[in-house]
């Protein structure tokens, strides 16, 4: 349990650091930080799938994009409030994962990766095509409704409010997921990851638990999508693109899969890389590809996984 303690201290330290950074950072760095936190939520959700039940999905952009669209469309057409819109986002992730999950999770490893990638690709095509609904490549812009807390109305157009709003959701997501993964449910996930056959012999319904992990992961992905749409006040079919499916895999690989919070490190490194490299090199996706190959060949434990294995 030493290792788990390392992860927990790291997570708490990171959250406190983020809370302090919010007040001192200049505005440019702060908006980058907001992005990193949102991707951190996405990455945590993805890690439940990849790191805890060993299901490598290449279709998580579907949940991210669906969450973003659910949020934007419910604000546009239903005139929903901010929190309602985000709840609808999470709901959309739940529905999609619960409908598509039963088809995917019973497949073997190779089929699972391919089929999730195909599903996301087809939804991406549909989103590009149904321009009347999604705005296609151009996307949709919204004006974000204020956050009604009963005693005070906060506007997310204030960068600082936006920052702490996202940080709040990041913390909540972390504590909820960490609680779930510490509970017997999380232990079953790990048992399935380590040896699905033995878990089956012990009487656990492996398919059902894989599905539960898939749904949790989808809901968190959709929440991240919703937050991203709210922060950028914009959403386009591009959010369902293949690139957004590859990113979470890379985050988890860099930071450490199966650590829940290690992916934050991956997110931070990748976002900084993207931010600075894409500024001076047009073909930065080339370097991204090289980076993926290098990471795979160096270690599949990831940074935090590596540190935790050194702690006695």
């Amino acid at each position, binding site marked *: 349990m030493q290792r788990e303690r390392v992860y927990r201290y790291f997570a708490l330290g990171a959250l406190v650091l983020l809370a302090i950074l919010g007040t001192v950072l200049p505005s440019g760095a702060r908006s980058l930080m907001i992005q990193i936190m949102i991707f951190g939520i996405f990455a945590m959700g993805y890690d439940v799938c990849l790191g805890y039940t060993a299901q490598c999905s290449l279709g998580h952009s579907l949940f991210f994009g669906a969450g973003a669209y659910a949020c934007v469309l419910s604000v546009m057409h239903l005139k929903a409030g901010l929190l309602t819109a985000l709840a609808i986002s999470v709901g959309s992730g739940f529905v999609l994962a619960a409908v598509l999950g039963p088809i995917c999770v019973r497949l073997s490893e190779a089929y699972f990766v391919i089929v999730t990638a195909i599903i996301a690709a087809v939804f991406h095509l549909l989103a590009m095509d149904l321009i009347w609904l999604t705005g296609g490549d151009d996307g949709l812009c919204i004006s974000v409704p204020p956050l009604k807390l009963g005693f005070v109305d906060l506007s997310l157009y204030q960068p600082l409010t936006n920052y702490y709003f996202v940080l709040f959701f990041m913390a909540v997501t972390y504590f909820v997921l960490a609680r779930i993964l510490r509970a017997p449910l999380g232990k079953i996930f790990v048992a399935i990851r380590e040896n699905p056959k033995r878990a089956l012999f012990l009487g656990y319904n492996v398919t059902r638990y894989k599905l539960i992990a898939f749904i949790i992961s989808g809901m968190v992905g959709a929440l991240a999508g919703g937050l991203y749409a709210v922060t950028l006040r914009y959403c386009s079919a591009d959010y369902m693109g293949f690139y957004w499916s590859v990113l979470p895999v890379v985050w988890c690989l860099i930071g450490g899969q199966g650590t829940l919070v290690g992916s934050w490190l991956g997110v931070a490194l990748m976002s900084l890389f993207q931010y600075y490299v894409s500024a001076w090199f047009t073909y930065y996706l080339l370097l991204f*590809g090289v980076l993926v190959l290098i990471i795979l060949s160096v270690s599949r434990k990831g940074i935090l996984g590596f540190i935790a294995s050194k702690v006695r």
Partner: protein
Amino acid sequence: MPEWAATVLFLLMNGLIWGLIIALIALGLTLIFGVMGIVNMAHGDLYMVGAVLAFFLLPVTGSFWIALAAVPIITAVIAGPVERFILRPYEGHPAVTMIATVGISFILQQIALATYGGIPKKIADPVDFSFSLLGVSYPGYRLLVAGIAILIILGIYLFLYRTNYGILIRASIQDRQMAAAMGINVSSVLVTTFIIGSVLAAVAGVLAAPISQVFYLMGNDVGLLSFIVVIVGGLGSLGGTLIAALALCSLEGVLASVLSPTQAKAAIFVVMIVVLMVRPRGLFGEREG
């Protein structure tokens, strides 16, 4: 003969010819998976590389046919080291190979974007004759493509089932460790198979270049379709892949007469989902995938 019948026949022909091209790509995909457990996400991009290379070679060599002969050699020179030095450590872990090949896919696309540019271009038909198909003029080059594709598929069949080296490859598909224990040089078999699969995709790219547009992202759509084909046919099953390619592409061709292209693609996707619900390993898949 009523007009709609001619239209449907025309679309069916197009679908079948497209199906043969997709079959070339998907056969390579399923062969590579069958022998080394690599889920090759860069396969669509090899198709793109074939088309782009043909575009570059055409002015140099002056003949489409020399380009068609030269592209496989160039592809083989690239593909061999990629398998041996980059992908070898991950073989047998489908998810990891998939991520690694995504990296390769990004690299290939960006190199094409940097050298070829982001604007779609067309290659002129290398043969200039057309004939009348029930009153509709049909380009002869497409029939030629179909002929070449059938010849290649036949050649692959003869190679795998009628030569000694084909036996080695099939033995490695069945049981790699046992094949190695019997003294087969599995390492060379792996490199060869990867080269054959990549060359198939690149040749398909050259053949398709005059029919479709040459574009640095042209591999994405084709890759998606060939993955669906491979899933429906059964990963690792060569015959199933061929049947699925022809069936799905002619279905898409005919559906395109009543639906929009995207809706036709969505219909193919629905077919895949139904097949997966009934048979999770595809129509003809038997092995553990």
